[in-house]
Every structure is written in structure tokens, then in C-alpha cells.
């Protein structure tokens, strides 16, 4: 786990290392289709990476494999120096819980839980109860995303942008090493979308969390430090962008 601020943004340790990663659907059937054709990719701790590509290029599949939601067909995926290929469902689930945070396009909060309960859910899931310290931490996070006043509101009572900010607070609640965001602003108007993106950059700056963000929006991509572009299941482009020196946008 990273601790806030003190960790240099790019300290050189590989967080993700993909070697010849392939992913096929309908394996062994006539309709078998390979979506990812042997990807090699390294992401270091503290990077802020944009993942772009046209629809159907395989970026969501890549995000799912990186997020341990789907298994690769072949190849190697090391997360925090540990090989993920071959782990059983329980092993993948526990690593997902410990090391990863997710922000989805449609915020995906649990509708029956209040904003605060949504943010403390990862702690509840891990410990079986929510300590006062964790509750306080969750309140700080909600305050940090500008929703201190909304902790007792349910998702249905919040706007789309507010819901997405709750989802971000939840994703980083247990200080994961890597946050995977699938078009986190895809469902928001331009102003909200810019706010949410700024929030991600702010958390990155404060906590040193690594971000991998799938986006269609070139303007947002340009606010990242590195751009990886996938076309037809292959990495077409992988280069530093924006300020490129790794400064927060």
C-alpha cells in the first residue's frame, strides 16, 4: 500500500507487467475470436495512464483482465511482482480487494447504501465491520471529493457527477495500488467531467496511486502523463503526453 504524498510518482518499480497477453472468447468453439493479440505492457508505480482506442479495439477487455475480472487466455500478467495467470477465483478476488480500485462509467454504487456506506463498503467487506477510524477516513474522502454534506444521501438522491465522485472515494478508500477507471466521465456533462478528472489527478498527486483510465475524450487523455492506444487488440502507440514530465494537470 502507498502512503500519501511521500511516495515519488514514478519510482521505477513495475506495478503491471504484461508479456504476450492474449485473450480469446468462445475458446474452442467455431465462433472463437481473439480480442487481444499478445500485448506487452509495463506500468510503473505512480503512473497516470490514459488508455484509448476505438470501440471494439479491446480496451475494455484489457481493463477487465488487468482488473482480474476476466482471465487471460495465455501470456503472463504480473501485478506487484506476482504472476496472476493460473490463480483461482478466490485468489483473484482477494487481490482485487487488496490491490485494486474500480471506477466504472455508470458509477455503479449500491443503491440501497448511503454515500458514506458505499465508501465504507470495502472496509466492511474486508474486516466484517467498520471501525470509527475507517468511518472517519471515509468522511474525509467524501469531504475531499466535495460531498461532505451528502454522506447520508442515497445514490438516487445524487446527481451523476456526485455519484461518480462517491464512486471515486470508494475506489480509493482502502488505498489501492492501482485504480482502473472505465470511461469515468463518459456519462457526465463537460463541466462535471472536468471536475471528476481533476479529482483523479488530485488523488494521484496526494496519494501516489497509479491510475489507468480508459477514455474516448482526447482532451482528457491529454491531461494524463502517458497515452497507450489500442487498435484491433494490439498496442499501436505508447508515449508520454501532456506535460509529459509527470506533473499533475
Amino acid at each position, binding site marked *: 500500500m502507498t502512503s500519501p504524498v511521500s511516495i515519488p510518482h514514478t519510482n521505477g518499480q513495475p506495478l503491471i507487467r504484461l508479456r504476450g497477453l492474449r485473450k480469446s472468447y468462445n475458446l474452442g468453439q467455431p465462433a472463437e475470436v481473439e480480442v487481444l493479440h499478445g500485448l506487452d505492457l509495463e506500468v510503473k508505480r505512480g503512473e497516470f495512464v490514459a488508455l484509448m482506442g476505438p470501440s471494439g479495439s479491446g480496451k475494455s477487455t484489457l481493463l*477487465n483482465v488487468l*482488473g482480474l*475480472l*476476466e482471465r487471460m487466455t495465455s501470456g503472463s500478467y504480473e501485478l506487484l511482482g506476482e504472476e496472476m495467470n493460473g490463480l483461482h*477465483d*478466490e485468489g483473484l*478476488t*482477494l487481490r*482485487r*480487494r*487488496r490491490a*485494486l480500485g*474500480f471506477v*466504472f462509467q455508470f458509477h*455503479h*454504487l*449500491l*443503491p*440501497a*447504501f448511503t454515500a458514506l456506506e458505499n465508501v465504507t*463498503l*470495502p472496509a*466492511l*467487506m*474486508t*474486516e*466484517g*465491520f467498520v471501525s470509527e477510524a475507517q468511518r472517519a477516513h471515509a468522511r474525509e474522502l467524501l469531504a475531499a471529493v466535495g460531498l461532505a454534506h451528502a454522506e447520508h444521501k442515497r445514490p438516487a438522491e445524487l446527481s451523476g457527477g456526485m455519484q461518480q465522485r462517491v464512486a471515486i472515494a*470508494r475506489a480509493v478508500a482502502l488505498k489501492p495500488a492501482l485504480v482502473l477507471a472505465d470511461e469515468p466521465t463518459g456519462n457526465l456533462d463537460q463541466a462535471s467531467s472536468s471536475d471528476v478528472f481533476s479529482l483523479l489527478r488530485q488523488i494521484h498527486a496526494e496519494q501516489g496511486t497509479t491510475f489507468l483510465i480508459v477514455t474516448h475524450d482526447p482532451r482528457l487523455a491529454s491531461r494524463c502523463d502517458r497515452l497507450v492506444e489500442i487498435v484491433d487488440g494490439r498496442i499501436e502507440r505508447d508515449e508520454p503526453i501532456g506535460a509529459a514530465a509527470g506533473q499533475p494537470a
Partner: protein
Amino acid sequence: MNWRRWLGFEWRVAVKFLREGRSQTLLIILGVAAGVAVVAYISALITGLQASTLAKTLGAQGHITLRSLDDVVLSAAAPEPGSTRLAEVQPRAQRLRSVINWQLLLPVLEATPGITAVSPMVSGAGLALRGEAVQSMALLGVDLDRYDRIVGLRGKVVSGTARLGPGEAIVGRELAHDLGLRLGDRFSVQTASAGGTSSGATVTEVLRVTALVDLGVKDLNERTVIAPLRTAQSLLGLPGGVTQVDMRVSDVWQASAMARELRQRYPLKAESWQENNAQLVSALNAQSVSTAIIRGVVMVVVVLGIASVLVVSVVQKRHEIGILRAMGATRRQVLRVFLLQGLLVGSLGSAAGLLLAVAMIWLFTTFVRGSDGLPLFAITLPLATGLNVALVATVCGVIAAIAPARRAAALDPAQAIRL
């Protein structure tokens, strides 16, 4: 802190899920409650009915009765080996015979676990005479205290005080009416002497009525005369003997097995109330089987009801399950969330159902009356029965949740989120 950790997450999510689908949850809890109420009420009703029937039947007889073996005709000589003998044997007339060694047997029987009361009795036929009235009667010679423990005789006295001093008798209500007897009146009892009717001699004794009893069956009331043991012994020509030993046991359903054991142990005829009331026993068994079938069917309906609601819930909550799985909830945690929902629905429904059953029983005992204005029979819901039904329903809730829970646990998180 461990108690807080244990299933803390699963518990919270299960409760939230149930509260989210409030009307659905309420309906199924009501369904379970109705099922539990029906089962608990039927159980209480049948138990009450059976207890009342048994009490009425067993009130006038011992649970196990020991008698001497029948007289049988033995063949004069064993048949030649390899030969077959054809014989027609006239069965012997059965005379009154005493249970051998009954004085020694009493303390042994009393010390036998499961036997709560033992009473020797000499019984035989005779005539009750008063003035011009002659009634046939059954003469029972007993030790009052012991006999009272078998049939609760003192509780059946309708007038007078049960007392059996020398020359005293307790008489059935109808017989007293037929003879025109009141308390304190005397009447004659006439029996054939020990030599049987063929000798022509009869024995007569005058007895004084101390109490009239209602034994619950008119037929018995019309012919019962209860006299002291000694008086009956001399009247029936069986000095020092008793024709039967009645016993009461703590568990009436064990009577048959205990009778079998007694038959093996002593050269005596041992009959249980079940053997003497085979039709009643089969009727009671039929009731119990019907109750079991009703319970089974209702529980199956409860299981199907809970299962169908949870199956729908799994489909409705696919998305949320996907989010939880993506966040790191294990398959087992998701499984437990749904099992807990089954448990919650089952236990809440059970609690409500028991209250409903108690209300139904109250209605029954308050408003359903017999022709005499008294409650038909007492029905209560014993705590053990109630808890048993509730436990079964709760377990049914968990069982019902197994299939939906497994479906939920097997959901692919990536697919569930995409929906």
C-alpha cells in the same frame, strides 16, 4: 470484536437487499408466517385432540394389564417322528385364575423404570340385586389407593366420597339409578361360587354404597361395582388371588414394548392398551400421518415460495452482485449473503407465524364450544412444538436459499457489471 466481524458484511448486505425489495420481502415473510401458523396450529390441534382422546380412553383402564395364561389343552403324547396327527380339540372353558405370586410381583413391577403405578384387581361377573331389581354387573375388587392411581377414580366420583371399607362399594352412576340406590343404601351382590355355575351354589354379600362414579362410558356405568379386594376375592371364590395386575406407565406409547418385555420375563399374559384398542391406535396413527403430510406439503410450499422470491432477487440484483464481486467480495461471501436472506425470511416468518398460531389457538379455545358450553378440548402450543416448527421453517428458509445463492455466487462479475 469477533462477534462484530463474523458475517458483518454479509449480514449488512443481506438486510439491505431485503429492505430494498420491501414489498417482496414482506409478502414472502407473510407467506412463511402463514405456513408456520398452519403447521403450528394443526400440530397443536391434533396433539390436543389425541391427548383428549387418549385421556378419555385410558382414563378407565391400565396401560398394561397382566393376567395369568389361558388354560389350554395339551396333547397326551408327542406325535411319532415322521407321522402327522390330525386332531380336533375342544378349547377349554376359562375359569378365574389368580396371577401367580402377585404379592411378590408388585414391588418388582413398582421398581421397574417407566412404570408409575401398579394395582392388583380381582374381577368377575355377578348379579346386583335390590328389591325386585336384578342387574348383571362386573365386580371389581381393588385396593382403592392403588386403583385410584391407575384410573383416577376419586376424580370420577359424582356424589359421595370414595371409600372402600369392609362391606362398602362404589357403584357406577347408571347402575345405581337402575337399582334405585342412593348413597348409604345397601344392595346384594350375588356370584357363582368357585365351583362355577354347575355346582349350583351361589355366594351373596350385602354392600353399602359410599360413592357413585361416572367412568366416562355409559356401558361401564351400567355395570360397574367396585368393592374392596378381600370382599371381591371371597365373592369370586379366589381367596388371596387377583385376576389381573394393572399398570400405568410414564410414556403411553412405550406400553406395547414394555408389555412385550414383561411377557418374556414372566409366565403371564401381558396386554398393552394399544393391543386392546387397536382401532383407536390406528386412527391416532392415521391422524399423525395426515398431520405429517400436511406439515410436509406446507413446508415444501414455504421452501418454494422463499426460493422463487430469492431467484427473482438474484436476477434483480445481478448488477449489485457484480459490483460487490468486482470490489473483492468472494463467491463465498455472496453465497452467504443469499443464505442469510433465506435465514432472515425464514426466522422472521417463523416468529410472526407463531404469534399467528397462538392467536388462532386462542380463537379456537375461546369461541369453539361443545354442546355443554365447555371448550371441546384443551389445545395449547407447547413451547417445544412451537420452537420445533420455527426451527424447521428457518432451516427450510436456508435450504430454499441454496439454489439462488449458488446462482448469485456463480455470476461472472465482468458480465454482471456490463448489464
